């Protein structure tokens, strides 16, 4: 099975090891992973702040990069959401419909396409808090998949009353309205149960929460879901 990895601009620079773990995970599950070198940015940051023209340029570029792919897997719920939900609206046509129908966030791909539920026992004894990124949750309706995989690898997923609330990243929102954005992160962090690690399918959310934790001096560990799941394989 051929799978093209769309690393996403943010993960390429800030979560490179998580992207590598994504590759390892997919190969472990029998996929042949490609990395089309022309990939850059899905266009979401520009689209979200209203620069539709610039976003469309990036959409067209990305459509070309993944034309030949059989499946496209992203270690990012928000970028996967962009491809699935907004590409066909921004650049209507067969190409965007095709890309939308073959693009998946990582945990979604594992559970819905590969039918995986239990990766191993590498997370046995680990207490995890899972942050549901808004795009994965509401655009892709990815909700139980990450939890299933984490538990399936032995992790205990701790109840967290604010787990489905927005972390306050929202792309440029975090820098346009930093005070409110930080207060939103505080709402998450103030209710965080005691856990070994906090994880999410979105690098932006992890940056936001870990950045705020750092500023507050909280002692919390953060890891990208892809890395945690690779650890879950327990090889």
């Amino acid at each position, binding site marked *: 099975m051929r799978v093209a990895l769309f690393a996403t601009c943010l993960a390429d620079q800030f979560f490179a090891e998580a992207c590598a773990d994504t590759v390892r995970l997919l190969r472990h599950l029998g996929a042949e992973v490609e990395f089309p070198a022309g990939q850059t940015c899905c266009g979401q940051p520009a689209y979200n*702040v209203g620069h539709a023209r610039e976003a469309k340029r990036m959409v067209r570029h990305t459509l070309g990069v993944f034309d030949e792919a059989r499946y496209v897997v992203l270690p990012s719920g928000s970028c996967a959401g962009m491809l699935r939900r907004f590409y066909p609206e921004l650049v209507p046509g067969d190409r965007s419909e095709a890309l939308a129908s073959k693009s998946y966030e990582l945990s979604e791909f594992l559970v819905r396409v590969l039918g995986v539920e239990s990766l191993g026992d590498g997370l046995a004894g680990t207490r995890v808090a899972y942050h549901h990124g808004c795009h994965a949750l509401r655009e892709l309706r990815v909700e139980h998949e990450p939890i299933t995989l984490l538990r399936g690898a032995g992790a205990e997923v701790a109840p967290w009353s604010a787990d489905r609330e927005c972390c306050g990243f929202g792309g440029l929102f975090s820098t346009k309205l930093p005070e409110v954005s930080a207060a939103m992160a505080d709402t998450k962090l103030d209710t965080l149960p005691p856990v070994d690690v906090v994880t999410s399918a979105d690098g932006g959310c992890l940056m936001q929460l870990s950045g705020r934790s750092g500023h507050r001096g909280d002692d919390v560990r953060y890891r990208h879901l892809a890395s945690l799941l690779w650890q879950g394989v327990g090889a």
Partner: protein
Amino acid sequence: MSRGPGAYRAEAARSLRDDPGVRDSVGSATRSFDTHRAKAYAEIDSERWRDWARDVKTHALTHLAEYLEQAETRLTERGVQVHWAETDRDALAVLDAVVGRHGIRTAVKAKSMVSEELGVNEHLERLGVRPIETDLGEYIIQLLGEPPSHIVGPAIHKSLDDCRVLFHERLGTPLDAPPDRLAGAARDALREAFLAADLGISGANFVAADTGTLALIENEGNIRLSTSLPRVHVAFVGIEKIVPHFEDLAGFLQLTARAATGQPIGNFVSLIQGPRTGDEIDGPEEVHVVFVDNGRTALLEDDEAWEALRCVRCGACLNICPVYRQTGGHAYGWTYSGPLGAIIAPGMLGLKQALPLPHASSLCGACADVCPVRIPIPDLLVYWRERAVEGGLAPLSEGLGAKMYAGLAERPGAFAAAAALMRHTPWKAVGRALPVLGGWMQERSAPEPSPKAFRRLWEEGIE
């Protein structure tokens, strides 16, 4: 008193910094409302109810002129005086005539967001009339001299202790009075107002066109009293409040109550057809309905944003919004706040005046999940952001940045090179002064780039 939407960031920051109690009070009130809403939605086939409500409102809006005319005919047949107000000044002028003709001295007000929007209270005071808010939450903020913070619970930003202090000062209740003692003091003070007032002012939640019925929902009973006891009743009604049939109210009364507070229906619903009839022993002698435009036609004219006119003012979007929760409504600087305010302000006030409200959102999408009439709120927020860019209202540096970024994204080699440059620049030292980075670093520690970019790891081979 309010500095307008343009001051949103500053007002939000100030509120967070100086009034942490507001964040606590608003947070717990909104969470409570939302929990009740979720339970009330789970009892019904909420998807189907919301589809129905969306379709009735869409149908009504696309036939709005016919239905408005039909409502006017029915109302007039029942002896109601119908007025049409293009602007807030036109709407307030109706009060001039009523006050003048009847020598009105006090007016009791049922909670009405449109009356806030129009500035009714200030205008009444200019006319020498004493306006008395009768909804308990509105009464509290009237005593404080503040605008409402939420469209259903105007005083959710005030804690029980805040109310104790206020009532102690103004009504003489003990500082440790329990809530029912405070409510009792307000009830006694307001009862006199109800009995003595010459004029009652309300809004309307819905107007059924085929019977000319004004439908008003409440829990306290102050709307029933305000629209029954005084001799004259004036109702200000946004033109978008029309529903086609009397029986449609069955759906909207129940869905709005479930969405707002999680109740099957409001405790008191008033279905008003007109002034008292010959065989009735009480009720107002004169009823006026003022159909208010005040920017609603401008919103209706917009091919995307007109969907916002389906709004039933339940407040569910405010209650679930993680941004609104941090500050309550005052920071938004307008009558309508939260996601609702953000999508109607650009149409009703104009985009320039409404900014940055469409940006006061992380686009999390929670609001769209709960809206009883399925307004595509996040899509409309992005729409207004696009219109702002097209209208030259976005910051210049942002536009240039977007163009530059798109240019790089189309050229993978250049993109990678620029990223490499970014990783090696000691930007952290000057980060605080930079436009985007500065905002980040003000509240968060700076992110560390990975030692090597992933594309480099790929080139080197992944084991």
